[in-house]
């Protein structure tokens, strides 16, 4: 079953490949969408009454955060340390964990799908991908990494069963990645893709590497030790990838 849901300011595609009864598949899709909308209500910086905005305005009592909020804030703090401050949910001067929440929400959605009996699916939230199992018996998922200048073509094609793939790029929404240390837009790397076991972490790493600029190329190479492979394209069209980047 293939479903597109507009939520969190983007389009999320849910592709469930398991040969389950139609009613079961429909239920899985509905519960996944309900979860994503719940995340949007709680974490959107665009909704005045969201928990993240109430927390930012100091309207929540001490210890008044939801368990989900606490989990996200703890993870953001850890990633801020792990990236030397280049991934920073407080970079704009206010609390904005959006750079973590989208990948995290898909990671949770995929885990819940698996727990509910879907061992073969692909969830893609606006370009951040989490796959499990296979699209059909006998072959793994094929995941294209978008070419940073040609929207319809791929710079790489990946092959995987269980994998998270996150891409940060300057080409879709302008120079929206800011180096938190300089306050300047990060444009040296046009596109950074990170693969690994956890989509939230992969997404944060991709964003951080882009903010680092050329230093990010070396920082990315180090990530392979912890199971995160990577590829990047510079603004002048040079392509780089780690040895273990799972290309076809």
């Amino acid at each position, binding site marked *: 079953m293939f479903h597109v849901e507009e939520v969190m300011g983007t389009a999320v595609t849910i592709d469930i490949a398991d040969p389950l009864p139609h009613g079961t598949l429909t239920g899985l899709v509905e519960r996944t969408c309900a979860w994503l909308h719940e995340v949007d209500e709680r974490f959107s910086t665009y909704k005045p009454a969201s928990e993240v905005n109430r927390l930012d305005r100091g309207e929540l009592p001490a210890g008044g955060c939801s368990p989900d909020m606490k989990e996200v804030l703890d993870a953001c703090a850890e990633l801020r340390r792990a990236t030397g401050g280049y991934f920073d949910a407080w970079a704009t001067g206010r609390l904005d964990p959006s750079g973590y929440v989208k990948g995290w929400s898909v990671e949770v959605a995929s885990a819940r799908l698996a727990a509910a009996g879907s061992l073969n699916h692909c969830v893609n939230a606006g370009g951040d991908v989490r796959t499990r199992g296979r699209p059909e018996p006998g072959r793994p998922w094929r995941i294209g990494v978008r070419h940073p200048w040609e929207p319809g073509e791929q710079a790489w094609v990946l092959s995987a069963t269980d994998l998270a793939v996150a891409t940060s790029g300057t080409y879709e929404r302008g120079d929206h990645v800011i180096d938190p240390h300089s306050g300047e837009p990060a444009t040296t790397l046009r596109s950074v893709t990170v693969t690994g076991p956890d989509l939230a972490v992969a997404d944060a790493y991709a964003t951080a590497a882009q903010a680092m600029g050329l230093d990010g190329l*070396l920082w990315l190479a180090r990530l392979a030790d912890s199971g995160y492979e990577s590829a990047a394209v510079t603004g*002048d069209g040079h392509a780089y990838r780690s040895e273990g980047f799972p290309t076809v």
Partner: protein
Amino acid sequence: MRRTSAAVIGTVTSAALIFAAKLGADAVETPDTGQTASGDLAPAAEAPAPASKAPASRAPGGKAPARRIGLKDGVFKGAASVNQYGPIQVTIRVAGGKITALRATHATTPATTRQVNTRAIPVLRQEALSAQSAQVDTVSGATFTSGSFRTSLQSALAAARR
């Protein structure tokens, strides 16, 4: 109900002309840490130009040159950044608009990082930027907004795959 995506994408963009893929001839290599801790920038290795792959190498032209940011010639030092092994700083040399040499240095003072610094610094491998229109199940890319072209494309894909 699946696997029609490449065909749809191909239809949407087949008229678009075409990014000039860079070849891998200006590969960057980083030598061992011991050699990079001091001294001049190591020259970049001369890599042979790869055999031309039809879908990967496109003729120059189209939109790309106007959008390219380009690098200024000279030697540039990056800001120190911290990874799990400690601070790291990169210096590059640019000639003819391309990175011709790259040096990375690690801090050597903390005892905990000294052992790591004796290892070669891993680097990403430079290669030709390819432009493939292979058949895929899904595409990873920079986050697009729900109002953008990509959304309508995704919807078209969804319709095509039902």
